[in-house]
């Protein structure tokens, strides 16, 4: 599971490079997210624009990553492809995160 990280003044962008976050890589994703977000800015933007498929395990792993940030830090999602967005909507998990259609939109909105 390859994640690219870029740290700006107020936030950190974590971009998923793989096309799938599924059961086969869910644990790996969780561990990689922890490593990339262990310290640094309080706001993390997870860029999902390369992800074409997510299943319930991948969704659970993103929720777990958000929870492991604790109460004072925040995980926002950006660049959801239609298939990925639908999984978040169907499970109502889109209400748990701030969701932005594009990474650029997320960055301008979140004040970077």
């Amino acid at each position, binding site marked *: 599971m390859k994640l690219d990280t870029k740290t700006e003044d107020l936030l950190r962008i974590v971009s998923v490079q793989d096309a*799938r976050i599924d*059961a*086969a890589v869910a644990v790996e994703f969780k561990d990689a997210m922890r490593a990339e977000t262990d310290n640094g800015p309080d706001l993390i933007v997870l860029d999902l624009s390369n992800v074409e498929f997510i299943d*319930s395990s991948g969704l659970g*792993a993103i*929720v777990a990553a958000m929870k492991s940030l604790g*109460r004072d830090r925040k995980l926002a999602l950006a660049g959801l492809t239609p298939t990925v967005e639908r999984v978040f909507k169907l*499970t109502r998990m889109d209400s*748990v995160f701030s969701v932005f259609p594009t990474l650029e939109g997320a960055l301008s909105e979140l004040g970077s």
Partner: protein
Amino acid sequence: MMSAPRDTPEQNDRVLSPFEVHVTSGQLAVREALEKFLDRLRPLKLDIEEAGTIELVLAEVLNNIVEHAYPETGPDGPIAIRCTQKSNGLLVQIKDQGSAMPDGKLPLGELSPIGGDIADTPEGGFGWFLIQHLAHDVSYARVNDENLLKMRLAVTLS
């Protein structure tokens, strides 16, 4: 003057002969099965949303088999997926020889409530919800020491 190309071959392409996909359980079984299955559906020229729905539902069913029917602590076993095209969609039957469903029946597939404390946000329980929500006529039976899950996936063939 050339006559216009006939469109009957296109029509015929959209009729799918019944097919089966076989894999052995294990960590990469689900990806392998999905790839094979979607490849066989290619003649239907499904749009990206329908193909995505089929991939998601099948992934959830197969994840469940790989994680629960054939748990890591036991031996791997066969998984067979059979697909038959009907007028109202694709009838998909998935068979495995692993452990039976708890209580011998399908989980309800209800979402846990969300809201309130962020620490209580559910991290699981989405799988059966997605199956029940996106597939039709989902049924389960234990037949001759095998699990048989049947479902219908609506597809539009315009």
